[in-house]
């Protein structure tokens, strides 16, 4: 079973690396942020699989923190990085 967990974790890492292409391409900031969001979920799955493969139950807390904080960066993006432009347009 350990083999399967590790193999799937490796596969997820590969999909993550493939997803980086979207960060490079864009075209809009939203596309880049979306890719980052997918990386967060992939990392959660990856950590859970590694926790099972190496019998390190405490690693599930790492996944828990990723899951809890996944939204913070995206909220910062929507409320600040993108809001800044709107704010500026409104001031004009």
């Amino acid at each position, binding site marked *: 079973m350990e083999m399967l967990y590790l193999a799937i974790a490796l596969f997820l890492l590969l*999909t993550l690396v493939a997803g980086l292409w*979207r960060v490079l391409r864009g075209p809009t900031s939203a596309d880049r942020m979306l890719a980052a969001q997918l990386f967060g979920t992939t990392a959660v799955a990856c950590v859970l699989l590694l926790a*099972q493969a190496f019998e390190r139950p405490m690693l599930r807390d790492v996944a828990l923190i990723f*899951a809890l904080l996944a939204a913070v960066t995206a909220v910062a993006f929507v409320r600040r990085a993108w809001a800044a432009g709107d704010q500026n347009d409104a001031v004009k």
Partner: protein
Amino acid sequence: MLLSEFLTSVLLLAGAFFFLAGTVGLLRFPDVYTRLHALTKADNVGLGLMVLGLALQAESWAVAGKLLLIWLLVLLSSASVAHLIAKAARQKGIEPWKQ
């Protein structure tokens, strides 16, 4: 091979497939809204299947509960974030893709 191990393997592979589909969608779909659609499948279904598969191997109910909690949290944030990004994109005037 035990039945539970077999079920876990099937669920994990199915989950991995949804992650692959999500990534392919992220790379291939034409605009931000359709990419959002692809992405939330990976978040919700892909991680859900994986969590279910891992929960079958969990050593106690508490661990299974923690796995479920992680999935619910990802579900909550990915749904909200998808909504927020889509709304912000509309406000920015990014047009949805039409064939």
